[in-house]
C-alpha cells in the first residue's frame, strides 16, 4: 500500500510539469503579447504607462526572449511562491485567489459528499428493484438530470425562488459576512448558502453516478459469487450490501478521477450564474479581459485540484480493492 502511494506521489511532479506547460501554452495563445494589449487597454481607458515601466514588465516576463525562457521565468517565479500580479485588478494574484480557492474546494467537497450520499441509495434501489416504480422514476430523474445544463438548473431555481418568494439566492454569504474574516458565525452562514449551489452542481453527477452504480450492480448481481452466497443461505439484503456493492463501488471510486475535476470546473458555470466567490468567475473575467497570467494561474490551479482528486481516488481505490494494491505495488 505504501509503495503504491509513493509511486503515485512520484508521478505528481511529472503531471504538474506537463500541466504547467499546457497552462503556459494557454497563456501564450492569444495573439500579441499581453503587455502590449495591456498598454492598449490602459490607453483605451484614458490612462497610460511610461516607457520605463513597460520595459520593466517586458524584462520581468522575458517577453523578448524565446518561449522556453519565458516559461522558465514564469514557472520559477511560481515555484518561489510569487504568482505575479493581475494586470486587470492591479493586485497580487495570490491575494485574489487565496480565499476563493478555499471556497472552491469547500464547495467541491460538499458537492462530492452530496452526490455520493444521494447516488448510492438511488443506484442500489434501482438495481435491486429493477423495473419497479422506483427504478423508472429514477431513470426519468437521471435522464432529466443529465440533460439539464447546470446553469439552467441554477437559473430556474433562482427564478423560482425570486418570483415565488421574492428572495435572491446568489452568493455564498449574506452581505454582512462577505468581507468579514472567518468566524464560527461566518461558517454557519456559509453552510446556509452552500446547499443550493451544492445541489445544483451535484444533480448532474448524481444522475450519472447513480446510473453507473445501477449498471455495475446489475452486472454484479448475476455473478457466480452471488449465487454462491445465496447457496450458503445468506439473506438477500445482506448479500447485496456485502458483495456486489463492494465491487460495484470500485468503478464509482475510480470515477472520482474524472468527477472531481468536473465538479471543480463545472462549478465555474454555476458560480458565474449564482455569482459565487469561487475561482471560476475569476477565470472567466480574466479570460475575457485577457489577463492571461491570472488566467494561466487559475487554470494551473484547476489542474492541481484535478491531480489531487485523481490521486485521492487512486489511493481510495487501492484501499478498497486488494487486486489493484497488489498489481501496482
Amino acid at each position, binding site marked *: 500500500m505504501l509503495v503504491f502511494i509513493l509511486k503515485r506521489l512520484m508521478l505528481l511532479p511529472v503531471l504538474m510539469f506537463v500541466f504547467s506547460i499546457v497552462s503556459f501554452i494557454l497563456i501564450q495563445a492569444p495573439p500579441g503579447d499581453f503587455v502590449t494589449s495591456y498598454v492598449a487597454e490602459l490607453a483605451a481607458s484614458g490612462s497610460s504607462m511610461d516607457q520605463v515601466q513597460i520595459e520593466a514588465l517586458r524584462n520581468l516576463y522575458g517577453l523578448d526572449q524565446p518561449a522556453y525562457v519565458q516559461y522558465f521565468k514564469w514557472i520559477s517565479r511560481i515555484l518561489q511562491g510569487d504568482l505575479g500580479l493581475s494586470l486587470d485588478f492591479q493586485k497580487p494574484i495570490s491575494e485574489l485567489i487565496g480565499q476563493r480557492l478555499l471556497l472552491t474546494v469547500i464547495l467541491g467537497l460538499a458537492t462530492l459528499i452530496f452526490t455520493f450520499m444521494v447516488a448510492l441509495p438511488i443506484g442500489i434501489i434501482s438495481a435491486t428493484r429493477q423495473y419497479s416504480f422506483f427504478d423508472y422514476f429514477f431513470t426519468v430523474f437521471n435522464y432529466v438530470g*443529465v440533460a439539464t445544463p447546470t446553469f*439552467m438548473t441554477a*437559473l430556474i431555481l433562482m427564478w423560482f425562488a425570486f418570483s415565488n418568494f421574492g428572495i435572491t439566492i446568489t452568493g455564498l454569504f449574506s452581505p454582512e459576512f462577505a468581507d468579514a474574516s472567518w468566524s464560527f458565525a461566518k461558517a454557519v452562514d456559509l453552510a446556509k448558502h452552500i446547499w443550493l449551489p451544492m445541489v445544483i452542481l451535484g444533480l448532474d453527477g448524481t444522475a450519472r453516478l447513480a446510473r453507473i452504480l445501477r449498471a455495475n450492480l446489475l452486472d454484479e448481481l448475476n455473478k457466480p459469487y452471488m449465487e454462491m452466497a445465496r447457496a450458503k443461505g445468506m439473506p438477500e439484503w445482506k448479500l447485496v450490501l456485502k458483495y456486489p456493492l463492494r465491487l460495484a463501488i470500485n468503478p464509482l471510486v475510480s470515477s472520482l478521477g474524472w468527477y472531481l475535476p468536473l465538479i471543480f470546473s463545472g462549478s465555474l458555470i454555476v458560480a458565474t450564474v449564482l455569482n459565487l466567490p469561487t475561482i471560476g468567475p475569476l477565470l472567466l473575467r480574466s479570460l475575457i479581459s485577457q489577463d492571461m497570467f491570472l488566467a494561466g494561474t487559475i487554470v494551473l490551479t484547476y489542474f492541481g485540484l484535478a491531480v489531487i482528486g485523481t490521486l485521492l481516488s487512486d489511493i481510495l481505490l487501492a484501499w478498497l480493492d486488494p487486486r489493484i494494491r497488489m498489481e501496482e505495488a
Partner: protein
Amino acid sequence: MSSETLSPDQNLPEEADAISVAPNWKLVWWRFKKHKLAMISGIIVIFIVIIAAFPGFFSTQDPSESRTRGSFIPPQAIQFWDNGPALFAYAIEGKRNPRTLKMEWITSETKKVPLRLFGRGYEWEVLGLFKTDIHLLALVNPDDPPVHILGTDRLGRDQWSRVLHGTQVSLSIGLLAVFLSTIIGIVLGGISGYFGGWIDMFIQRLIELLQSIPPIPIWLALSASLPRTWSVTQGYIAITAILALITWTGLAREVRGRFLVLREEDFVVAAKLSGCSQLRIVFRHMVPTMSSHIIAAVTLAIPVMIINETFLSFLGLGLRPPAISWGVLLQEAQNLQSVALAPWLMLPGVAVIITVIALNILGDGLRDAADPYH
C-alpha cells in the same frame, strides 16, 4: 464435444432457427424495436433533424430581424378552436405603464390575428440551394402584427424562429464535433487495441492524461484565445475543433475495449491465419463488427457536445452573435434580472433538454440493442 458438427443436422425440420442465423444488424434492429421509448426518441430525433435542415420553413419571422417597439413580448398561444376548427392567435397590445415607464403587454380577447398553414412570409434559403417564402405557419394578412409563439427577446427578435435556427447550429456543431472526435477515437483506439504492447501503453497514458484534465477551463482558455475578429464561420469551425479535441478519449476507450475483445475472436484469428494484411483485418473485419457499438457511443456523445457548446456560448466564449445557437440564445437569460423580467428567455433551454434526453435515450436503446448482455 458439443458444437463440433461432423455431420449435418440431417433430421432437422425446415423451420430452422431464425435467431441463430439472422445477421448481426438484423438482430440489433429486432432488439431495438422492442425498446419503445428508444423508438419514440428516435422519431423525435428525426423530427429535430428535419427542423435543423429546414429551420426557415418552420419559422414565422426572420430570426435576425429586430423590432425596437416589440421587445420582451411574452409567448402567444396559437388557437385552434373558434366555434369550429380555426387557426389564429389573439393580438397582443403594448401599453407603457405611466408610472414605471415599462411596456406592459396585454392579450386582447377580441382582436384575432388569423393564421394559415403553408402561407407566405419572409424569404428563406432551402439548404442553400434556392429561395422560397413558403412557411408552415404564416399570417393571412401580411400587415397584421407578427405572432410570437415563444415571445421576443431584448431586441424584439422572434424567439421561436431563433430557437429553430439555433437547432441547426447547435445540432450540426454537435454532429461535426462528434464526427471529428470519432475519427480520432477510432484511429487511436483501434491502433491501441489492435497492436497492444507499448503503443497501447502510450496511447492509454495519453488518454488518461487528457481525461484527468478538467475540460471546461481548457475549453474556456482555448476559446478565449480565438481572435475576436474571426467571422461566424471561422468561430464555428474553431469551436467545433476545440470540442472535439478533448472528447475523443471516451470513444477511443470504447473502441479499444471492443478491439481487445474482438482480437481474440475466431474470425479475426482465422483472417490472420489466412494471411490477411493487418489493415485489411482491422477495416474489413473488425470495424464493421463494431459499427453498432460505435453508432451507440456516437449517439451518446452528441448530447455531450451540444451541452458543452451551450456552456461555452452561454459564458460568452463560444459562438458569438450574430451566430444563433441555443447557447447564444441562452446568453440573453444570463442573470436574474432578465429572467425575472422575461422568463421565456429560458425556453431555448427546453430545446436543449428535449434534444439531449431524446438523443440519450436513443443512444441507450442502441447500445442495449447492440450489446444486450452488458
